């Protein structure tokens, strides 16, 4: 049963409108060709006829025939030109069809390429590259540690030697005091003099700053001569938690430089009045920003300050 029905159902036509146009043009061309063949036949017959008439000396009749022949030859030429026109049109149509196909396929290729690019997203690449670079930096640090002046074997030998010396020079150190198990009682905090302590630090603010890779963040403090200043900083986040620190006096002299420090505290007295500048530099990092927590404690004018420890 299925076979019977399948036979009657015609599959979709693969003939386009352009095909039908081309077919009609070709049909026209065929007709012209047939016409030409017919004329050719007539021409030959007439030529033969004219020859016979001339033999019979019927010049006038022959002339008429030749005139007719001439006319037909001209017609043939005209139809040749028409044929050319038709052929050209057919070629043009067929070529544009080819162009359409090419364009369609280029589009398909493009879409496929785009899809692939979407799958392969840029942010994933960056993430992988990041992790790789951090890994490389970590490895570099380990290498630096290991390739210091001494090898591990050397360090072990040093340790052994140290132990030997200690044994020789010092009395027995076996009876070490026991580690206290309870919390020792701490003295009470004096109540009477907190103002004096606090007076030393009349201004103290803590900040967090994010220093991007290759970047430097600077801060400024305008003080009077003799003022005590203290910069406290700590790298809270990022990479190997290290930062470069520089402090400049008002005339541009470098008064403090810290290289790859993770935390620090630098106290100094301002020997001249002006704007002191301190900078955190993350130049060592290729991609990872550092978050630095810092505070610049500025003391009171020298006349009112008390000595501290």
């Amino acid at each position, binding site marked *: 049963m299925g076979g019977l029905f399948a036979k009657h159902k015609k599959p979709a*036509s*693969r*003939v386009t409108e352009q*095909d039908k146009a*081309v*077919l009609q043009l*070709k049909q026209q061309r065929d007709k012209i060709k047939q016409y030409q063949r017919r004329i050719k036949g007539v021409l030959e017959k007439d030529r033969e006829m004219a020859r016979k008439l001339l033999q019979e000396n019927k010049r006038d009749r022959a002339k008429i025939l030749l005139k007719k022949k001439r006319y037909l030859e001209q017609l043939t030429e005209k139809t040749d030109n028409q044929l050319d026109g038709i052929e050209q049109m057919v070629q043009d149509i*067929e070529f544009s*069809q080819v162009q359409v196909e090419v364009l369609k396929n280029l589009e398909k290729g493009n879409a496929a390429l785009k899809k692939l690019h979407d799958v392969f997203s840029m942010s994933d690449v960056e993430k992988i590259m990041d992790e790789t670079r951090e890994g490389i930096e970590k490895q570099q640090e380990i290498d630096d540690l290991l390739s210091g002046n001494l090898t591990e074997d050397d360090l072990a030998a040093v340790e052994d030697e140290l132990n030997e010396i200690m044994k020789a020079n010092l009395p027995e150190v076996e009876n070490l005091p026991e580690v206290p198990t309870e919390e020792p009682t701490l003295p009470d905090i004096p109540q009477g003099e907190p103002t004096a302590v606090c007076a030393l630090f009349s201004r103290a603010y803590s900040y967090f700053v994010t220093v991007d890779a290759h970047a430097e963040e600077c801060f400024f403090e305008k003080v009077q001569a003799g003022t005590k200043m203290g910069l406290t900083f700590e790298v809270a986040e990022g990479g190997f938690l290290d930062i470069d620190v520089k402090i400049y006096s008002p005339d541009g002299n470098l008064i403090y430089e810290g290289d790859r420090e993770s935390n620090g505290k630098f106290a100094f007295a301002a020997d001249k009045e002006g704007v002191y500048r301190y900078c955190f530099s993350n130049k060592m990092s290729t991609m990872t920003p550092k978050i630095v927590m810092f505070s610049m404690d500025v003391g009171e004018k020298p006349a009112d300050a008390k000595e501290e420890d």
Partner: protein
Amino acid sequence: ALNANLRSMEWPWQYNFPPFFTLQPNEDTRNKQLEAWRNLALEYCKANKQFILDINEAYSCPLFNNKSINRKLSEEGIRTVVESLRDRKAANWVDTQKSKFYVFWHTPEEWGNLIYNWANANGMMNSVCTFFELSQGEDTANEEFHNLDEGLLLLALKSLESKRKAEIIQLDEETQGVKFF
């Protein structure tokens, strides 16, 4: 119509043997006779590029009428030969009146393949051709199917169509074409 330029075809010995033109009663003999007739008919048509034979014109056809021995095959005989050919898919009636018949010295499928191969070799894939172009165009002048009978051409193209290698286009009464795939 008879082709004036008879290609040199060698007639088999049976052709000049008078009993050959008489339908034999004995079954075995008849079978042999029909086999010889089938081969002769196919060979004759191939040599003369004849696609159709007409029973009404049989007596002007050298195949069925051997004037030199004054023998011709009767109408009954011709029809028996035709049926014998039809049984082997080597012939078929052109019309319902059963007066004209195709001789398939190439079957429609074979014609279809010949045409399709020509189309492929000449870059006509996905292109349209008129029927005229195929059978009488200058481009097919050296092909076997040049001057192929129109009815047979249609059968050939239909066989291609059933294999999805072509599609016949009929725009109007006159315009007939085919697209090759």
